[in-house]
């Protein structure tokens, strides 16, 4: 294996990967993820304090979280994306006289570098927060962060090894193997839950420490929480490095043969579908034009797995909100139910922000249709599943909140406004997402922007979108904040009428804001000069 060739490949890939735009994007992304990590970890710590979670259970939670990362990588490994390659690699690297093993080495090195660079800041902040809580000091947090990074690299190697093994007869039975692997990881990772069952021997839970995620969680959480098990940690650390070396050697061995044909080449904007043939569901007979537009959008959402992603995200969201509710933050700070507004509301912007990439502007712009109306119909089709998933989440969070505030009518009004307000905010941010996608998003056909220019446009779009969405939803937030004072000054007798009128005001405002944003989105599409 020539280290020189690996060095050349990595150097040029790094040059291509870390452009100025990427670095700016990295800084913005890291800032937001650090804020989120701080918020999430504080919530978790309040929750564990209130519920009386032991460090052992925190280790289990950490292990499960890392297991989900592993499951994702196992899946991408079986999809052939364990060693990510693009068409430039195929055209220029694979046709060059470079031994496949050196390509493997360079890819692993680049992936590890990227993961460490992107992953370390938020991970470090997470452990610093924990170490501050447990008063264990920052060097321990750095150590814990490094252990977690080792685990992340193990995951990359596992994924690469799985992809490389696809060429060895495993490809025909890859669904079976994939399900087997995922089940195994999840079952072993979930074993510690048996600790909650009385009289179940604790040694069963220890089995989870066999896997890299169990080992990494035990060491990292143990270190920051100040659990003194020096010898046990050393053994765990050795086992963790055992996994690392094992997967690395396996990868080196598997990469000896020709493996290029098993790799899935990533094409920007390309979507994967389970079956090449489907039953055609868009029967326009007797339907209006706009109902056909909505139906087309719904078909695309279902076939491109957007609906599934929405469901999974809603599950995570509700899980987080339940933990937040149980952490007692609502009770300790009555106005903190505004938090629901932000978390549920921000859910809207993500789901529609890439809608323009799925559109085909040459068809729309050469057709005699109003772009404003078209965008509104697409929005209607996309809003339905969003509300379908968010309404149960809001109700689940809202019922205990309403019950806990029954004794304080003035606070109850805020809760009553906040719950539909969360859905209104989600609807507004979704319209905002569509507007900014119309203005800055790259369309499907034209490559008028270089990838670097597009990355910069994406960053600008993200920042503008965040600021404008906040401005657009601020009246709803102010309404919730002002409700307590209004209720106190008008007295309990006028509360039902006040609640009804404020809800109507908020709905009317939301409708107005959505209409403005969608009109602007339609105009932005009309003004675009690309296809």
């Amino acid at each position, binding site marked *: 294996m020539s280290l020189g060739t690996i060095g050349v490949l990595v150097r040029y890939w790094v040059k291509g990967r870390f452009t100025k735009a990427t670095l700016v994007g990295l800084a913005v992304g890291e800032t937001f993820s650090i804020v989120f990590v701080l918020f999430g970890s504080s919530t978790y710590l309040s929750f564990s304090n209130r519920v009386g979670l032991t460090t052992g259970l925190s280790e289990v939670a950490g292990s499960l979280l890392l297991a989900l990362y592993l499951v994702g990588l196992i899946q991408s490994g079986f999809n052939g994306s364990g060693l990510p390659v693009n068409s430039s690699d195929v055209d220029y690297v694979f046709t060059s006289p470079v031994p496949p093993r050196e390509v493997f080495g360079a890819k692993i090195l680049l992936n590890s570098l990227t993961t460490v660079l992107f992953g370390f800041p938020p991970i470090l902040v997470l452990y610093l927060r924990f170490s501050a809580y447990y008063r264990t000091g920052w060097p321990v947090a750095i150590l814990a962060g490094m252990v977690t990074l080792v685990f992340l690299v193990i995951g990359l190697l596992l994924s690469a090894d799985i992809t490389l093994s696809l060429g060895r007869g495993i490809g025909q039975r890859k669904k079976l193997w994939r399900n087997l692997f995922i089940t195994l990881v999840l079952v072993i990772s979930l074993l510690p839950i048996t600790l909650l069952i009385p009289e179940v021997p604790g040694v069963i839970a220890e089995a989870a420490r066999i896997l890299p995620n169990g080992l990494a969680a035990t060491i990292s959480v143990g270190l920051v929480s100040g659990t003194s098990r020096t010898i046990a940690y050393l053994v765990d650390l050795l086992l963790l490095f055992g996994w690392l070396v094992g997967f690395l050697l396996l990868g080196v061995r598997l990469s000896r043969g020709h493996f290029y044909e098993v790799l899935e080449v990533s094409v920007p904007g390309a979507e994967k579908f389970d079956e090449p*043939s489907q039953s055609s569901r*868009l029967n326009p*007979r007797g339907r209006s034009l706009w109902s056909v537009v909505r139906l087309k959008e719904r078909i*695309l959402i279902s*076939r491109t797995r957007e609906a599934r992603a929405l469901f999974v995200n809603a599950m995570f969201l509700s899980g987080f909100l339940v933990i937040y509710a149980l952490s007692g933050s609502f009770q300790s700070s009555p106005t903190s139910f505004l938090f629901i507004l932000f978390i549920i509301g921000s859910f809207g912007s993500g789901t529609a922000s890439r809608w323009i990439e799925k559109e085909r502007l*040459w068809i729309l712009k*050469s057709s*005699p249709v109003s772009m404003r109306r078209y965008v509104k119909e697409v929005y209607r089709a996309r809003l339905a599943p969003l509300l379908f998933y968010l309404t149960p989440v809001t109700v689940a969070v809202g019922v205990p909140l309403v019950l806990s505030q029954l004794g304080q009518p003035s606070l109850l009004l805020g809760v009553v406004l906040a719950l539909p307000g969360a859905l209104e905010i989600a609807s507004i941010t979704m319209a905002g997402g569509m507007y900014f996608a119309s203005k800055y998003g790259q369309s*499907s056909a034209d490559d008028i922007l270089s990838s670097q220019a597009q990355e910069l446009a994406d960053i600008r779009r993200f920042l503008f979108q965040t600021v404008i969405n906040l401005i657009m939803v601020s009246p709803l937030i102010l309404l919730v904040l002002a409700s307590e004072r209004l209720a106190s000054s008008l007295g309990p007798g006028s509360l039902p009428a006040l609640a009804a009128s404020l809800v109507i005001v908020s709905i009317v405002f939301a409708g107005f804001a959505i209409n403005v944003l969608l009109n602007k989105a339609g105009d932005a599409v009309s003004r675009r*000069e690309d296809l």
Partner: protein
Amino acid sequence: MPQISVERLTKHYGTLVALDNVSLDIGSGEIFGLLGPNGAGKSTLLKTLVGILRPTSGTIRIDEIDIVVEPEKAKRMIGYLPENPSLYTGLTTLEFLQFVGKIRGVDDELLDREISESLKSFGLEEKRNSLLGSLSKGMKQKVALIATSLHNPEVLVLDEPLTALDPKTRVSVKDWIGARTKRGVTTILSTHDLDVAQSHAGRIAIIDHGKIVAVGDIESLRKMARAESDARLEDVFLRLTAEKGEDPILK
């Protein structure tokens, strides 16, 4: 009276002049070829003609309808095929054509018939329930062509319709263009294929640096280029687009 009339059309992208004072008249039922080197302004001209780009100045009239003033009315008469037509990869062939037909205002009954006949004539019947993402490039091009003409437009604007197609598909696309012309459809055909332009187009415009440098049938183009009476279009094109003082052949 010309069906398509372009008067003093200019299009700027910032400081770049993509179209410079272009004027053209295209008659009804004519196949009009548009030739020019890469970056000459062919695609910009076509996109402006179909109302995708807004002209910086000048007018475009399709049957006396100004495309800037009444874009929706004008678009009903035009079928446009871009150079790289991208399709909704998550829709089946049938769904895609039904969707396009609907947004172009085709009657349900007519749409069903038009789709069935077009799929049959392009040999795509078996692919009606295939996702567009799973089709080959040639098949996608055929589907895009069908979509372009579902509403029976009076004017077809085709931007490089034969690029990167295999010989069999090229033949079927050329036959398709011929059949449309017989029905009296006006066709503007941008192409790099000079043989196709020479054999199909009645008149040809040569565009270079955003300006129309010559318009006419092959005979008048030969005269303008001061070429031999049997000179091929390729030689005529090279002479007309050569820089001053530059040998057209070396170019």
